[in-house]
């Protein structure tokens, strides 16, 4: 009898640091088992072999920042049965979306002596601004256990079990004393989606929001709390303008504190 055909997995990269796809190679205990379950059909960082599409599941890392990439993402979508974005770049535009608040021409001239050589768009945008996305996995970087959960869910045709509640719940669960209440340390945990395991408070620092906004975040209330801790307006702008600066709730909150 013929062996059952394995589902095809593809990994695609746009503007990013490669850290989220590296998370797959960082699954040291599970990688070979995973490779037994799926056909890793396109994953250039790990293999020079490319199997033609269509692909059952595409993982997309990175944001759209060039005219070429704005075209390429459509080809990726067409070749993919399911498309899941991985990480803050692909789901919110990433740290490079800081350009969205400035004039990109000025940015180019700061970095490159011959700006004419550089082709880039004015804004760094998430994948969902360009094509239909089946699921967005958050984090800068993503959590590898959550990545395995998402891959497993799609391979079995079920919904991924990824909670949208805040980091606060994870602190409670690991018995971390609230750094904001107990130590007066400004923390974005109350408005940030869980998934990291609440590591920053466990290491005695405030959350810096790398998993992006939780569902229905009350950012203005948190900003008032921070102001009570003597955090200045420019520092509030910087706090919301981090790795998920262009995610709508964070974007609006940072703009609310910008000096007119």
């Amino acid at each position, binding site marked *: 009898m013929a062996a059952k055909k394995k589902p095809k997995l593809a990994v695609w*990269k*746009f*503007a*990013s*640091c*490669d*850290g*989220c796809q*590296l*998370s797959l*190679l*960082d699954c*040291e*205990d599970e*990688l*070979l088992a995973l*490779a037994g379950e799926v056909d*890793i059909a396109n*994953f*250039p*960082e*790990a*293999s*020079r*072999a490319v199997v033609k599409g269509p692909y059952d599941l595409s993982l997309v890392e990175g944001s759209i*920042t*060039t005219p*070429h*990439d704005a075209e390429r993402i459509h080809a990726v979508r067409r070749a993919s049965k399911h498309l899941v974005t991985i990480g803050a770049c692909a789901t919110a535009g*990433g*740290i*490079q979306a*800081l*350009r969205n608040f*400035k004039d*990109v021409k*000025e*940015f*180019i001239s*700061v*970095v*490159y*002596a*011959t700006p004419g*050589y*550089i082709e*880039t768009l004015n804004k760094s945008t998430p994948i969902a601004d360009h094509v239909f996305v089946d699921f967005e996995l958050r984090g*800068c*970087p993503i959590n590898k256990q959550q990545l395995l959960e998402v891959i497993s869910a799609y391979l079995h045709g079920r919904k991924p079990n990824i909670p949208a509640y805040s980091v606060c719940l994870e602190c409670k669960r690991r018995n971390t004393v609230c750094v904001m209440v107990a130590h007066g340390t400004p923390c974005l945990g109350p408005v940030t989606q869980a998934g*990291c395991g609440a*590591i*920053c408070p466990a*290491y*005695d*620092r405030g959350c*810096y929001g*790398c998993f992006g906004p939780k569902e229905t975040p009350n950012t203005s209330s948190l900003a008032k709390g921070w102001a009570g801790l003597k955090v200045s307006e420019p*520092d509030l702008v*910087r706090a919301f303008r981090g*790795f998920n600066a262009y995610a709508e709730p964070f974007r609006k909150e940072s703009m609310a504190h910008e000096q007119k």
Partner: protein
Amino acid sequence: MSKNSKPRTINVDYLARVEGEGALRVRIKDNKVTDVKLKIFEPPRFFEAFLRGRKFDEAPDITARICGICPIAYQMSAVHAMEDACGVTVSGQLRALRRLIYCGEWIESHTLHVFFLHAPDFLGYESAIHMAKDHGDLVQRALQLKKAGNDIVALLGGREIHPVNVRVGGFYKVPTKAELRPLAEKLKWARDEALAATRVVAKLKFPDFEQDYEFVALRHPDEYPFNEGRLVSNKGLNIAIREFNDHFAEEHMAHSNALHCVRKARGNYFVGPLARYSLNFDKLSPLARDAARAAGLGPVCRNPFKSIIVRMVETVQACDEAVRLIEQYERPDKPCVEVRPRAGIGHGCTEAPRGILYHRYKIDGHGVIQDAKIVPPTSQNQRTIENDLRHFIPPRLNLPDAQLAWQCEQAVRNYDPCISCATHFLKVRIERD
């Protein structure tokens, strides 16, 4: 195949098994290599621009996002540059913990490169996953060695990629002796694995290829370099880190989104494991030095293909050093030194797994960044990579295109290029005229 008339192009449109997006194009005419371009089309992300206006203490977390493979390197160069600007020195156990977390990154990054990105070329596999079908035990053990490095980073940093615990002045929280101790046992196992792996890679077949490189690396009087030292070369360079800009210049080429860095008035140079090793052989631990000798290496290695051995020797070194640091660890009273910003300029240069990574910042009296400059290892090696290919290809022109392309890819991968860093992938195209 036509002999001399038609041009021949070898194209690798998307280089695999490198970090980031790049391509290689080689043009050949009349059996001569007329052009070699390592094209970097990784989109620019403008870190130097958006760092302006950010606070000095944000630089380690922001610049870590330049590269998910070597975030510790970015964090280390950033904290040293900021501390230089603010006139602060971090010493004692806090300094030791910085070395320890860097050991973790070297072990993780080197093992990833040796077994997952580079060894498949030597053994003729498309990837380590293909390789695992015939060499399952080797790949499984390499994964566990890699994990030992990641365990250090995760314990000290909170997570493997973009760890959260490094700050200007030290750490947010430092571990207890009891928390670190179990790591030492795992690292002793890793050290033995790395020694065994060094013996394995020493038996690979290496092309006979050596060049008269200018190696550039840090050199420290007492130790194999990570965070501190002077910048030295085998051709007379010996400068303080703060003099970097006087001796090196970045150039912008049309075919690349990465700036090429060259040594002023001299041209291309070579950074990374081969350079570090050849300039610091005497600073290796006795165990690592013996491993190198047993693998057939002399105190200087000019064959870039043998970088795969040097990476494993450095992995032995990092495991050995990590064990020593843990055994001598005493928990410091405070997790960090207080750093007050002051107006000034700071320089930092540390040894990323791929070579020296230079940061320079100008900050104002409130600690707001006015200007930033970041020179990653791959942009320094780009010219040398292209130059290697100019010499590597001619004796191999009789190979069919597909085979020549693969060998060119392998030659590029000698440098473990990190294209995410350099612009902050690799596909080879060979054109024959």
